């Protein structure tokens, strides 16, 4: 047996196993009378190790997909999970043994899902390292690690699965684990309240998504996403139920991705969650954007008229998110809440880029600027995760030192926390789109491609970028400049500085080599997303 053939299920199984080992480990350490410092390294170390292993497996699969330019699939419960095509390469999942259609659950990895899963696994690993020092409640560290690992399972599963019901299951795992993590500082009533609100909207969202899946299953009798795409494509015209399902899918995942006006849970959850959790919450937003894009492009992208209207819906949500997010950020005086509103604003850029691509899908304009707009949206997603993750970690470092997030109670931190200040500056410059930082390159790609679609959209995007800069000038001025803060004389521990340094270096590196990243990483992902037929062929046979 070649272990590498089974990386796809192991990507889920390893963090899942580690999550369930945590309570056992806790009991064992208590019986062995291991002190809090030792327990911290053992429990935290196990989490880091599990997530490092997961990251390495995800990177290996990603390399394979990008190198071979082939979609990877894994069929659970099959004799040969990775080899289901016949000798001539044409026998596929719809053969007689399967009853005429794909029965089993699939994991499917194309460039787009590999791109998202790599980012998710990478940030989850960094969050676990950061949490080694950040989480001080040793008694409950096991719970934290358990939930962090489960959340990683959920967000990776959302991006790997090729099955609609499976997607619902992973969506719920992500939602429940993240609610638990948001409520982790349980002595803060605000944290518990934020978690409850997040749980409520997640549950309603999950149920509406499940309703949509049920409506599709009732009509077409399959849950396999590729096969569902085939079934929808065979219809002379979409039924009203199909259209309702599209509405439910777009509404639900746009809400989970923090699109305005369904974003209200975001500032609550992002602000109250511990900093490493916020980092992983960013990736769960990304997983929701992934699901939103994947479902719309794959299932409905083949119906031009519907895809174009969906594109306009994306653009409208994107514009609202960009503008409302940044204007709300300007008036915040809670550091993390301010950053949460900027997250909403940045999601708007991604929706705009993806929306323009969708609005011209299947037309000549798609090759002219649609693909570039989608690449811009995905490139911005990558940059967003790097610099926004960095900014949230710097906010966490400030909170770690002073136990406050109020800008009016901060000031002069640059004297005692020079590295954190430098990292904050890098993140702030990148999110504000200052050249040559990474945010500029992705925004430029969006500006220029979207301009060809409608210049007004670019104008709004540029104004939002200027307001983002204004907002971060305020934060820098309030928190880091001024007389030295009497309570801050030393930097945060190395385990917190290292993840920030890694993210800062990557932000700089991506900014300095944008063409490399776009050509080799982002554009193949955008092409895979737009190419629904390729996905179907890759899963159901006939080659990618």
């Amino acid at each position, binding site marked *: 047996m070649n272990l590498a053939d089974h990386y796809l299920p192991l990507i889920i199984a390893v963090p899942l196993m580690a999550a369930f080992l945590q309570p056992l480990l806790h009991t064992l350490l208590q019986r062995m009378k291991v002190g809090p410092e030792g327990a911290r390294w053992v429990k935290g170390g196990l989490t880091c190790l599990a997530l490092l292993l997961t990251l390495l497996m995800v990177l290996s699969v990603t390399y394979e997909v990008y190198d071979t330019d082939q979609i990877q699939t894994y069929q659970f419960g099959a004799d040969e999970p990775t080899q289901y095509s016949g000798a001539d390469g044409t026998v596929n999942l719809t053969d007689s043994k399967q009853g005429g259609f794909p029965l089993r659950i699939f994991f499917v990895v194309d460039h787009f899902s590999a791109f998202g899963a790599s980012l998710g696994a990478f940030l989850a690993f960094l969050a676990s390292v950061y949490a080694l020092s950040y989480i001080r409640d040793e008694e409950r560290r096991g719970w934290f690690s358990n939930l962090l690992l489960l959340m990683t399972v959920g967000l990776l599963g959302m991006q790997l699965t090729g099955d609609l019901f499976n997607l619902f299951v992973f969506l719920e795992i992500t939602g429940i684990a993240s609610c638990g993590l948001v409520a982790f500082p349980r002595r803060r009533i605000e944290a518990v309240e934020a978690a409850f*609100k997040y749980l*409520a*909207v997640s549950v*309603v*969202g999950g149920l*509406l998504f499940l309703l949509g899946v049920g409506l599709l299953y009732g009509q077409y009798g399959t849950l396999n996403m590729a096969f569902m795409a085939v079934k929808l494509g065979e219809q002379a015209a979409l039924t*009203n139920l199909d259209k*309702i399902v*599209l*509405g*439910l899918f*777009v*509404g*639900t995942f*746009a*809400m989970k991705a923090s699109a305005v*006006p*369904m974003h*209200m*849970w975001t*500032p609550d959850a992002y602000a109250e969650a511990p900093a490493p959790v916020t980092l992983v919450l960013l990736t769960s937003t990304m997983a929701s954007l992934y699901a939103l894009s994947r479902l719309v492009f794959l299932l409905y992208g083949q119906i031009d*008229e*519907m895809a174009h*209207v*969906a594109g306009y*819906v994306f653009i409208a949500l994107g514009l609202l998110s960009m503008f*409302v997010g940044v*204007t*709300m950020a*300007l*008036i915040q*005086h809670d550091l993390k809440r301010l950053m949460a509103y900027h997250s909403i604003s940045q999601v708007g850029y991604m929706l705009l880029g993806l929306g323009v691509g969708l609005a011209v899908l299947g037309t000549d304009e798609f090759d*002219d*600027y649609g693909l*570039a707009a989608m690449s811009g949206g995905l490139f911005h997603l990558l940059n967003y995760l790097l610099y926004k993750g960095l900014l949230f970690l710097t906010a966490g470092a400030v909170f770690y030192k002073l136990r406050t997030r109020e*800008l*009016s109670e901060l000031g002069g931190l640059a004297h005692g926390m020079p590295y954190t200040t430098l990292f904050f500056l890098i993140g702030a410059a990148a999110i504000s789109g200052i*050249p*040559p930082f990474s945010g*500029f*390159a992705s925004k*430029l*790609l969006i500006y*220029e*491609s979207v*301009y*060809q679609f409608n210049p007004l959209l670019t104008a709004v995007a540029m104004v939002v970028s200027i307001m983002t800069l*204004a907002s971060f*000038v*305020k934060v820098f*001025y309030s*928190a880091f400049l*001024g007389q030295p803060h009497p309570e801050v004389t030393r930097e945060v521990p190395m385990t917190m500085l290292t993840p920030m340094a890694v993210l800062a270096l990557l932000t700089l590196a991506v900014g*300095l*080599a*944008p*063409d*490399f990243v*776009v*050509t080799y990483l982002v554009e193949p992902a955008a092409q895979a997303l737009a190419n629904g037929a390729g996905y179907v062929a890759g899963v159901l046979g006939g080659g990618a």
Partner: protein
Amino acid sequence: MQFEDLLEVMDTGSGVWSPLVFLGGVLIAFLVVFIIMKMGHPGVVATGRKGMPFFSGNVPPDQRMKGDQLYWGFTEALHTYYERLRLLHSGDLRDYLFWYLLTTAIITAIFLGVE
């Protein structure tokens, strides 16, 4: 994949972007600024109005300006907009669910209207 790929100019479809060329430009700009600075009179001390922070042509107040006050003019000009926005962000869970369901209903109605 070669090392030179890292230095490639990014094609945006209707333009190009090279961070290295930009950094070269910044370096030249710094050089010009440095030369101009060197051409000035050494030992000039900013006193009186010259030493004060610029405050839109007004005399700055004695106390330290807070971060919240930096964009007072902007938020004041958009007073009505912000009032409505604050109402929208009530913190009430029922509002969260209302906006989610309303938006989903509107989106669904739009899709139902597509032929």
